[in-house]
């Protein structure tokens, strides 16, 4: 099969899946089977593409011109490949988890839920494979719109308010900052195609480049750079599978992925490094890393703490990219993958606790590890990965970031990474200690009967295992990351 066919299949499969899910709403078992088959089919196609990319073949589609200068085109490059692999793999696990969670909690409106999920995945793949800024922007907006119903899923006032914040911040930043940046890029560079070395390199004075960089960084609201991060905690009203896949993997990763992509292929790492335009970005990202960690420290709601931890971890990726050396770019790419698999484990665990015992606050979790050993063991692995302790995936990204920062003598970045690692330990370790070493508290005694439904336990065990496996066998992500950075 040609590369073009494969890309089109990867985009069409989840979209068609969404339609089929709608048509099979009459039987929940058939509908869920469609979801699983779709996810598996997507995974297979992505693996085929991965084979081609690792084999050195270029995989791309032709361009469809919308108006002169605006083209719909897809082209697989290493970073997008990595992103697509992560998203499509985790979609399978997440679907299994969703089935357990949605049924276990008797959630309403399950058909639209699975449909929106499939559309969100289609647009995520579109973002990953986009060959130019317009295609990326198109899929980026579809991702926002298709996930809005998932955030507002519960339909109560709280969910609607969360949905509003989500929609306004994400659509708002993308339309008000990102779109003008793209238009300006089209005018200045004369093209919107992602090209190695950057299309804006040497095309505009330093001041304009710095301004554009700011527009991009804050326009990509999904990357949750402070002060545009608060859609993410607000989105935590969504059902946990949504928080897990979308707000730990697809949506936020689409954000930092876009940031890295823009830095590498639109501005050009070397061009930015020469002009010194991106130094402020180290500070902004570093500020977000530290501040979000401090805020996370003070959250008692487990999902909120995880959300702020996500905000902090996302800025690691941006920080790594803004160090502007190949080795740190490798770190950024690795961290996208590592954080995805670890954070989804943490959210799975949070949802598992909620499903089994309705507990949502950390202070209620004394001794829960004895009642839910699988869940809390997975949580512990995910948490260790967030801190960056080997043998978990989180160590890899941090290692490359630190190496990059030290090599270039960016001591601010080094300090940020070290301090935030301590903070991460500060807000994750107490939960583990509390869960396993304290005697069961009154909430746990009253509510925690045992483990969550089997699909949930399977899913979180799988992702926890993945977190360790990625540390032990990092070959594929590392190969892609190295291809991206050209080292």
């Amino acid at each position, binding site marked *: 099969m040609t590369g073009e066919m494969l890309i089109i299949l990867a985009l069409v499969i989840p979209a068609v899946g969404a339609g089929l899910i709608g048509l099979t709403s009459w039987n929940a078992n058939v509908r869920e089977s469609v979801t699983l088959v779709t996810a598996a089919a997507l995974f297979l196609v992505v693996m085929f593409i991965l084979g081609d990319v690792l084999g050195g073949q270029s995989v791309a589609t032709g361009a469809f011109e919308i*108006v002169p200068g605006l083209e719909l085109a897809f082209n697989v490059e290493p970073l997008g490949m990595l992103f697509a692999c992560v998203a499509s793999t985790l979609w399978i696990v997440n679907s299994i988890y969703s089935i357990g969670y949605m049924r276990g909690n008797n959630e309403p409106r399950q058909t639209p839920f699975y449909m929106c999920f499939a559309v969100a995945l289609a647009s995520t793949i579109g973002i990953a494979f986009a060959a130019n800024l317009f295609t990326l922007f198109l899929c980026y*907006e579809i991702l926002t719109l298709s996930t809005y119903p998932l955030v507002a899923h519960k*339909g109560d006032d709280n969910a609607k308010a969360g*949905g509003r914040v989500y*929609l*306004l911040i994400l659509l708002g930043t993308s339309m008000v900052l990102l779109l003008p940046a793209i238009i*300006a890029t089209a*005018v200045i560079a004369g093209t919107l195609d992602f090209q190695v070395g950057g299309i804006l390199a040497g095309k505009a004075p330093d001041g304009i480049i710095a301004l554009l960089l700011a527009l991009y960084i804050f326009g990509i609201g999904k990357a949750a750079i402070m002060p545009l991060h608060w859609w993410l905690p607000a989105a935590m009203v969504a059902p946990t599978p949504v928080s897990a896949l979308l707000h730990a993997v697809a949506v936020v990763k689409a954000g930092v992925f876009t940031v890295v992509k823009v830095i590498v292929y639109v501005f050009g790492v070397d061009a930015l490094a020469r002009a010194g335009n991106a130094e402020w970005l180290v500070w902004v990202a570093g500020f977000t890393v530290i501040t979000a960690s401090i805020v996370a420290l003070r959250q008692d709601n487990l999902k909120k703490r995880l959300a702020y931890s996500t905000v902090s971890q996302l800025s690691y990726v941006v920080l790594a990219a803004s160090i502007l050396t190949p080795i740190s770019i490798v770190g950024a790419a690795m961290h996208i993958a590592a954080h995805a698999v670890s954070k989804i484990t943490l959210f799975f665990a949070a949802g598992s606790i909620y499903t089994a015992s309705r507990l949502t606050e950390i202070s209620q979790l004394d001794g829960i590890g004895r009642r839910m050993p699988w869940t809390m063991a997975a949580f512990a692995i995910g948490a260790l990965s967030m801190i960056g302790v080997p043998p978990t995936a989180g160590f890899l990204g941090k290692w490359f970031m630190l190496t990059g920062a030290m090599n270039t003598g960016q001591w601010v970045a080094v300090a940020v990474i070290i301090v935030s690692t301590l903070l991460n330990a500060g807000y994750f370790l107490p939960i583990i200690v509390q869960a396993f070493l304290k005697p069961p508290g009154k909430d746990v005694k009253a509510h925690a009967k045992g483990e969550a439904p089997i699909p949930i336990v399977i899913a979180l065990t799988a992702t926890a295992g993945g977190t360790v496996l990625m540390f032990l066998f990092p070959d594929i992500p590392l190969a892609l990351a190295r291809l991206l950075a050209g080292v």
Partner: protein
Amino acid sequence: MIADNLPALQVVLPLLGAVVCAMLRRGTLAWGVALIVSLLMPLCAIGLLLEVLENGTISYAFGGWPPPIGIEYRVDIINAFLLLLVSLIGAVIMPYAKSSVEAEIAPENHAWFYAIYLLCLCGLLGIAITGDAFNVFVFMEISSLATYALIAMGRDRRALLAAYQYLVVGTIGATMYVIGVGFLYSMTGSLNLVDIAGRLADIENSRAVMAALAFLTVGISLKLALFPLHVWLPNAYAYAPSMVTSFLAATATKVAVYLLLRYYFSVFGVAVVFEELPVTEILLFLSLAAMFGASIIAIFQEDAKRMLAYSSVAQIGYITLGIALANQSGLTGGIVHLFNHALMKGALFMALGAVFYRIGTVKIDDLAGLGKKMPITMGAFVLAGLSVIGVPGTVGFVSKWYLGLGAFENGWWWLAFLIVISSLISVVYVGRIVEVVWFRPISQAARSAKEPPLGMLLPTLLLTAATVYFGFDTTASAGIAGRAAELLLAGLR
């Protein structure tokens, strides 16, 4: 033979149709006649557009009297595009009209309704096709008088007041227009637009020419509802029968915009309008006021039709903004937005018409929970609403892209930002409907609602699909708009 007379047929057919409808007196038969005429209109328009694209401007001497003595029908890319737009909307809306009109208008008035509707269509097409300044006025009056009557047929008694309000304002507009034409005639001795343009070139820009421009601008601006001359529009749209609102929103203001384009670029020329007079500044300011002011007012409406009406005022601001930019990209954006806005607002008002058909109200609170009862109709509404916001992949984005490029080309960074910020306001009012419709419990009014009959549903879906289709394939929209902009900027001088 038929091909040669297409320009005349384009206007005469609906006129004859109106007479036949009036004589038939039977609602269904009259609808049949109106349907046939409406379906023939796009054929004429396509024929004209193809002819123009191939052989250039068509000049048709009415009654065999050569211009500038007789009345000339003159078709170039710009008005061929507009003719196609108006007649296509007319053709899509006719199948929809049957159920909607039966539900909203007393049976004894059906034949009259279709007769008046065809007169309105005739007037709008006439304005677009004629090359004679006074003939424009005649057609303007035909369409306006017909519109007043159509609006007054609304079921709500306030429709009478709305029609009266529009009558007063519309008459003032028409008067201004005719005064402007009078000044032009006194200066040039001609009523033929091309002839006037040619003669104006030889005349120094006297105060009378400026006065003509001013009167024409104000008169036409009333018709196209340029902020703050829009006050007639929200009431008229809100209380008119659903089918009339959909038709007017998609066509009437567009024709007025065309007229403005014609006078600014073809008759007076860029040099006079944009360089000697502060038209750019005025138009820019008013467009921005419309984009922000009307959008903000739209947020606070209780009635969905009124909300969309204010949104229309805001969207017209985008079109006039394109005119104010007066460069290739900006003007292309303005002209393509004529087309795009017609599609999206047509679809939106038709979806609301379908809601009105089923539940007899379009108050926003009454729409609660309708997403479960009418998922297809409301899905179409949301999709067309996304187009109003300008989400990529919809027509709204194409317009915004060109306008943004136009702003950058003039070096106006700040304007590009204002354009995108204003479109953010539409997120609020579209999002509000989405939230009410999908995330609220079903209201009392919506309890027994279901999808409308196919005759209403399919046209709505067709226009909605068009808002997505032309978001990707823009050869027929932005492609032609670009050529039209080129032609306008070249001017007749």
